[in-house]
């Protein structure tokens, strides 16, 4: 197994006059869970499609499991596209087997595994039902199982949580973790920060076709200084001179970014200035704050709108 499951350098994809993906660099370590986080239209799907060889990049290079010809390693890859698709007249177990057969798994073995997987996921009774008769959630599970049936080394999931209820989202999170525990590399795109924050060891933040950040969730959060929440008894006094320039008052509360010098000099100045400290808390920024800081306010607003839309759906 190569050290990095995916490497991409300077990927560019142009549709008409629009640079849908504009110089994306990605490195996905083998065996990790990697998230691509960004609002709809940011270039997540196009990036994944380029990585998989569905579309060719206009510029840049990419290697998937050590090869720059992704179809050569199709047998070792599982892919769940954003737009789910199954043949409606196929039986559930057959649909799983067919997806395995596309990636080199013998049909008979695929059928056997398909039945077993459906049983394992509580869909044993649906095995012989035609896909058209399944509920949306069941059909999505069938497709997900079809993505995994051939035991891939690398799983690529495009917006895997969209359309799933909370229960099924939790199931999917468990499934992703279980795959990673087996050493499988998982890369998925999402516009839901919570999924990325909970699941990913590394993330790429994407906005307007560019990737301004790749690294661990912790690294992303560390991009912002911690936020201080101070409560004082006094409303004014010489101690106010010790507060940083960005300190914003809210009654007896003050919010500001922790100074580079740390909290101790600040505390000393507040005490000496008789601010009457009632409480002081230092909060590490969340991934959302990091996203706002990294991708910009517009991208963050769009991300929030996408999340709201998904929640409403």
């Amino acid at each position, binding site marked *: 197994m190569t050290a990095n499951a995916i490497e991409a350098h300077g990927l560019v994809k142009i*549709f008409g006059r629009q640079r849908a993906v504009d110089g994306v660099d990605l490195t996905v370590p083998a065996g990790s869970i990697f998230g691509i986080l960004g609002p709809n239209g940011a270039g997540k799907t196009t990036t994944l*499609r380029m990585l*998989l*060889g*569905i*579309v*060719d*990049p*206009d510029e840049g290079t990419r290697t998937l499991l050590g090869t720059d*010809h992704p*179809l050569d390693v*199709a047998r070792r*890859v599982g*892919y769940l*596209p954003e*737009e*789910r*698709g*199954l*043949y*409606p*007249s*196929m039986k559930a177990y057959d649909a799983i087997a*067919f*997806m395995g*057969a*596309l*990636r*080199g798994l013998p*049909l008979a073995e695929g059928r056997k595994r398909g039945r077993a997987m459906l049983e394992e996921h509580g869909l044993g009774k649906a095995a012989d039902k035609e896909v058209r008769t399944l509920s949306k959630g069941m059909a999505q599970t069938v497709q997900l199982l079809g993505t995994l049936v051939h035991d891939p080394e690398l799983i690529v999931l495009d917006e895997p949580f969209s359309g799933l209820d909370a229960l099924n989202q939790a199931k999917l999170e468990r499934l992703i973790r279980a795959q990673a525990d087996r050493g499988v590399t998982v890369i998925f795109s999402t516009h839901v920060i919570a999924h990325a924050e909970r699941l990913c060891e590394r993330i790429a933040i994407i906005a307007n076709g560019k990737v301004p950040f790749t690294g661990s969730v912790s690294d992303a959060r560390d991009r912002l200084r911690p936020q201080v929440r101070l409560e004082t008894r006094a409303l004014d006094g010489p101690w106010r001179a010790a507060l940083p320039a960005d300190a914003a008052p809210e009654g007896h509360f003050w919010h500001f970014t922790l100074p580079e010098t740390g909290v101790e000099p600040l505390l000393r100045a507040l005490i000496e200035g008789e601010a009457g400290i009632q409480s002081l808390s230092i909060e590490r920024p969340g991934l959302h704050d990091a996203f706002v800081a990294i991708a910009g306010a517009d991208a963050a607003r769009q991300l929030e709108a996408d999340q709201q839309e998904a929640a409403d759906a």
Partner: protein
Amino acid sequence: MPELLRAAWVIARRDFAAIIFSKAFFFFLLGPVFPLAIGIAAGSIGGQVARDIDQPSFALVMSAGETQAVLKARAALAQQLGESRVPMLAAVETDDPQSALDSGNDSRFLGVLTGSLAKPQLIGTESEIMRWKGPLELLVERARAGGAAAPATLETRTVAQSAGSQEQGRLVTAQVGQALLVLLTMLLAGMVLSNLVEEKTNKIIEILAAAVPIDAIFLGKLFAMLGMALIGIACWTALALGAILIAANGLPALPTPATGWPLFLALGVGYFAMAYLLLGSLFLGIGAMASTVREVQTLSMPATMGQLLFFFLASYSVTRLGEPIELVAVAFPFSSPFAMLARAAQQDGLWQHLLALGWQAFWVLLLIRFGAKLFRRNVLKSGSGKRGLIAGLFARP
């Protein structure tokens, strides 16, 4: 290449099973039965009318007295049995009775009744002798007016077909074969137009494109449709043969093609496959650009017009073997299968067919690659500025 074929097999197997085991396939099989039944009924009526109008005619070469006796006997029999049931006889004066079959206008004779009433002889092709020996023996017996002790038995002499009639017969075989090939291709290849719509409307194309080369998808779909077409043809042929055997009490005699029937039929299957794959790969490529059934329907008109043009080119060249127009029809991939089948009926020699099949197969592969490239570029939006469309044809799938 093996991976490409493996992937194509997976696609073909799925498509084939989906078609064959669908209810729609039953109706597909039934489709041509009704027009076929009407056609057979109309054909048998037409055939009867034709038989009534074009009565079989034999040359009568005997002595003057016996000629008169035979003609009288014919008139009497015709009165009793009906005019159409007794073959026409025309007295011919010649020293060489067989020449009556070859000479000028007399080529309308199916055979020659000659010799004497005591020792009559029938000259003709094997099939005509088999068909007319009985009625003519009855005629001779009547002409003898019961004078002979034994019933009349015609001595027979079989002649090979004349060069002119053989050529004419093979032309008929060529035209029938070609028309059948065109008809079947037109009926079936158009269905390929809508073949990728299911994958596109059900969003399956993304899964396929991520797992296997587009070339394999096209190849698999094309061969699945070919398999379905061949099954359909086999069913219709069996039905048609059964109907003809029952209705006509025997198969109609078509002149033997130059290559002989077994090879001609094998070449017919081969050329149908090629014609189907050629048009199918073109239609698949065009149809793949369409995203809705309505768009496919809009595309089907120019596709049908194109098919007709190929048919006109091929049928025009049937009677012009070796002439430039026929060579163009042979070389142009879309008319080549039709033109070559006509050749198989009229001209011996296997090598030219092997060459033609290879040439046609090359174009099938080229068209599949071209269609796949177009699909990647226009539908999957995978245009790469690095390679042109033509150069991309010869790159890795």
